[in-house]
């Protein structure tokens, strides 16, 4: 048999599941499939064997643009010194209620 890697691998899909209505879809994992239809069938078998979901999204992994961890500082640090975006930044008298 051909024991070389055969380059015939199915593309990877990421799977997102909504566990119940009212909640968002969450990433649960990934799988290989030839096309989106097969990805959907496999996701159902692999990730919802015990009623884990009521809705599934599959998306081919190559279509996801991810942020680069090496650029995390420039992306996320600017939010660090903006305490004025939080309610506790604003001083109000303690006797004040419901605000």
């Amino acid at each position, binding site marked *: 048999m051909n024991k070389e890697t055969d380059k*015939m*691998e*199915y593309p990877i899909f990421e799977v997102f599941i909504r566990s119940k209505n009212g909640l968002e879809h969450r990433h649960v994992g*990934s799988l290989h499939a*030839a096309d989106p239809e097969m990805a959907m069938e496999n996701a159902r078998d692999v990730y919802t064997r015990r009623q884990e979901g009521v809705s599934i999204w599959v998306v081919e992994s190559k279509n996801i643009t*991810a942020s680069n961890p*090496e650029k995390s500082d420039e992306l996320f640090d600017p939010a660090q010194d903006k305490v004025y975006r939080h309610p506790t930044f604003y001083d109000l008298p303690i006797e004040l209620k419901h605000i």
Partner: protein
Amino acid sequence: MSVEINLDQEFQSRIDAGERIEPKDWMPEKYRKTHIRQISQHAHSEIVGMLPEGNWITRAPTLRRKVGLLAKVQDEAGHGLYLYSAAETLGISRDEMEVQLLTGKAKYSSIFNYPTLSWADIGAIGWLVDGAAIINQVMLTRTSFGPYARAMVRICKEESFHQRQGYEIMLGLAKGTPEQKAMAQDALNRFWWPSLMMFGPRDADSPNTEQSVKWKIKRKTNDELRQQFVDITVPQADYLGLKMPDPAIKWNEERGHYDFGEIDWDEFWQVVKGNGPCNKERIAARTKARENGTWVREAALAHAAKNAERKLSTKVAS
């Protein structure tokens, strides 16, 4: 050079602070390689583990036992898939991993190189083999590499059904006719020592352990996990009224643990090296599955390509 050292130190301090490492983060090459080896080995074990159990699906004694075993074997396929996916985040393809398995470059748990000779073996595997696996896997839910830890959380949730199913089978046999009880005892006799071997070599003979603990890949050593398994399992065997096939097993008040006998390490290394009772049979079965699946993968890909083309041309036409 000094940049490399700084990166290493920075990485170690992230680990020490209890941070999780995600696939795109910088990591030492050895951390990456160790994970690829360990996770793929774990995935292969799930997939090869389907073979000894699948052997009894058509001969399960009742429909209840059959649906349970089918569901369990299906879970193992899922577990293999979660783990392959986790390993793939480190830059190795599924196909490369499969080829490593088939060519013997990658190992899988040596326990699956023992045959399942009777129905009681399915009980013993669920109780002992899944029991041993759970101890290891619960520890791994807190491992430092994010995708591996997440796969483990999912697996642990499903695995406890496997162990309870196995123990229930043993319970049924142990409380059954003298012949059934003898079957259960025989299965325990054959699977006890190989189950202890699942935790790997003694700490003194396991050169990777120290680094793995430092990187929080493992949080306990092989010997610690093995002791934990013995302590949990001995009372369970007593409850079944079965006898442990190790005369050295005895409660040690001073240590607060059960003492137990020495594993036959020659047998362990023989099986690891490929000379166990079923090594060849297992790899032959996986090779056959790959060969028989080739035309299916080809057809599915051709179908997908054709469909995509068709969608494209209808778009252009409209």
